[in-house]
């Protein structure tokens, strides 16, 4: 067990270790919390859809939501069929094998993929699925309002298998980063840096929206942005708290940190807004919440509640100013997936290496508490995941783009993707909509028209 313990320090399986040596029996309390956590994380994906959709123009609202919703289907099924195995079955340092493909061997017995657990294996698989689903959906924020839907479906499905699964394996599934001792409690590296970098690359490969920089593109519904952020926060308690894979003190710690860090980021963000322009925006507040959540994710089970507040305060600054700066560049990372998730994730991952405290996590200290090497390990993990994600995403998009155009034609971009990709509108009064099975207006008469009106 002790060798396992060593290379799993930075994984979601952390919380289960206390029980590892004990009877491998299902615990009803742990299971209850994991059932809830899984549901909570699943809810985050449609919540993300609203967070994103509120920020686009109404002609692209449905397309933006569908980019998240589709991930629930395509990535969800890909995970069960292949992704879970590639992430969490035995393999090499970089990727898992196929032994758990098609959920073979994933039953109701109380175990995880790597260590024994007190919850059904199948539930652990589902919990991990929700992480992969939302990671893929996160990427979409960088390329909204211009990508064709079918290549998008292909992209996220393959991305979940070829980019997400390897990174998850490296850090959590028995791969080399986990063995090195990288701390990533709930996915700062695996989910947020990974998706944030993928978003950056995707925005560059896809190119700018035709109106970008030429026209103001405003959030069509800022209340949806807040609604999405609120539901994301709610779901994030499962994301971080559930990463203890048990209902114990560690889960409590991760939970409370998930409450305090974004609260702190929110305060700082509002104050920055007020100091800079005299007005604090709601879209900014929603962004602050998400940034704080991203930043605390890797640290949530490693740092004390007061340090979570410190982390939340610090994390506001890089993301705030990167987002400000990005808006002035030519880079159309439309909804700031890079500024929010990559920068927030990096800040969080590095601060985990600084602020971790053995008295809270039972595993190890960070730089501030005398263990500078942890910071270096974090740096390495961040670097590896950035490099892998960038490369993988780039190659994947270029390959798909070689087969079929990634972007909608300019004219369709002007009409909006809701009509051209989905054949419907988000909000409609039905005026001027003529039933196709109703009496058609005889087209023959059309040619005859003279001198009337057109």
């Amino acid at each position: 067990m002790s060798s396992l313990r060593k290379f799993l320090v930075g994984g979601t399986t952390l919380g289960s270790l206390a029980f590892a040596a004990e009877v491998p029996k299902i615990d009803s309390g742990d299971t209850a919390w994991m059932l809830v956590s899984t549901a909570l994380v699943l809810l985050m994906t449609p919540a993300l859809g609203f967070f994103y959709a509120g920020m686009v123009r109404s002609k692209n609202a449905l397309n933006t939501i569908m980019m998240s919703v589709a991930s629930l289907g395509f990535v969800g099924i890909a995970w069960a069929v292949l992704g879970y195995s590639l992430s969490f079955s035995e393999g090499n340092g970089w990727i898992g094998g196929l032994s758990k493909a098609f959920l073979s061997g994933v039953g109701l017995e109380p175990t995880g993929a790597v260590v024994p657990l007190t919850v059904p294996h199948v539930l652990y698989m589902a919990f991990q699925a929700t992480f992969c689903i939302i990671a893929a959906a996160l990427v979409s924020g960088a390329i909204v309002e211009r990508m064709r839907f079918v290549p998008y479906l292909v992209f996220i499905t393959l991305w979940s298998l070829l980019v997400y699964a390897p990174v998850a394996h490296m850090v959590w599934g028995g791969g080399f980063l986990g063995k090195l001792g990288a701390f990533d409690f709930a996915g700062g590296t695996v989910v947020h840096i990974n998706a944030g970098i993928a978003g950056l690359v995707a925005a560059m490969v896809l190119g700018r929206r035709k109106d970008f920089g030429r026209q103001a593109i405003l959030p069509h519904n800022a209340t949806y942005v807040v609604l999405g952020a609120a539901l994301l926060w709610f779901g994030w308690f499962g994301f971080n708290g559930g990463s203890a894979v048990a209902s114990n003190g560690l889960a409590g710690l991760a939970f409370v940190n998930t409450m305090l860090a974004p609260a702190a980021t929110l305060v700082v963000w509002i104050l920055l807004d007020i100091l800079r322009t005299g007005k604090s925006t709601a879209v900014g507040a929603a962004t602050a919440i998400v940034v704080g959540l991203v930043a605390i994710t890797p640290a949530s089970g490693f740092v004390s509640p007061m340090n979570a507040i410190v982390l939340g305060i610090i994390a506001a600054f890089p993301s705030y100013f990167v987002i400000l700066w990005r808006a002035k560049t030519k880079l159309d990372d439309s909804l700031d997936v890079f500024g929010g998730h990559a920068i927030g994730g990096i800040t969080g991952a590095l601060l985990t290496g600084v602020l971790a405290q053995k008295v809270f996590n039972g595993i190890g200290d960070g730089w501030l508490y005398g263990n500078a090497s942890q910071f270096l390990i974090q740096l390495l993990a961040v670097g590896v995941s950035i490099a892998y994600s960038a490369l993988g995403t780039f190659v994947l998009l270029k390959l798909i783009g070689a087969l079929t155009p990634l972007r909608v034609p300019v004219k369709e971009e002007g009409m909006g993707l809701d009509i051209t990709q989905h054949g419907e509108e988000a909000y409609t009064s039905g005026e001027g909509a003529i039933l196709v099975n109703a009496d058609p207006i005889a087209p023959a008469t059309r040619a005859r028209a003279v001198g009337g009106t057109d």
Partner: protein
Amino acid sequence: MKMVVAIIRPEVLNGVLEALFKAEVRGLSISRVQGHGGETERVETYRGITVKMELSEKVRLEIGVSDHFVEPTVQTIIRAARTGEVGDGKIFVLPVEKVYRIRTGEEDTAAVTPVF
């Protein structure tokens, strides 16, 4: 050239459109407006606040037509939009001095004659 402006009920809009298309009127613009006329007021209540809604939903059609097309256009609308109850709306015919088709720069009658 004239501009026919018609205020009609939203529920008759689709019928009016169909009738207009059948009558060879192919170009028009519509917008939602709220109207006040002889209609009975609606009363609404919000947490103890009672309000009379003085305005009802209407649709405004704006149709630029050649002079000899005014009469058929107006009659078509009257026929298709009439329910006989108060609130059916009004039609106004305004003079137009000039019309341009933005796509081609064509003017006046040419500007409102369909080209395929």
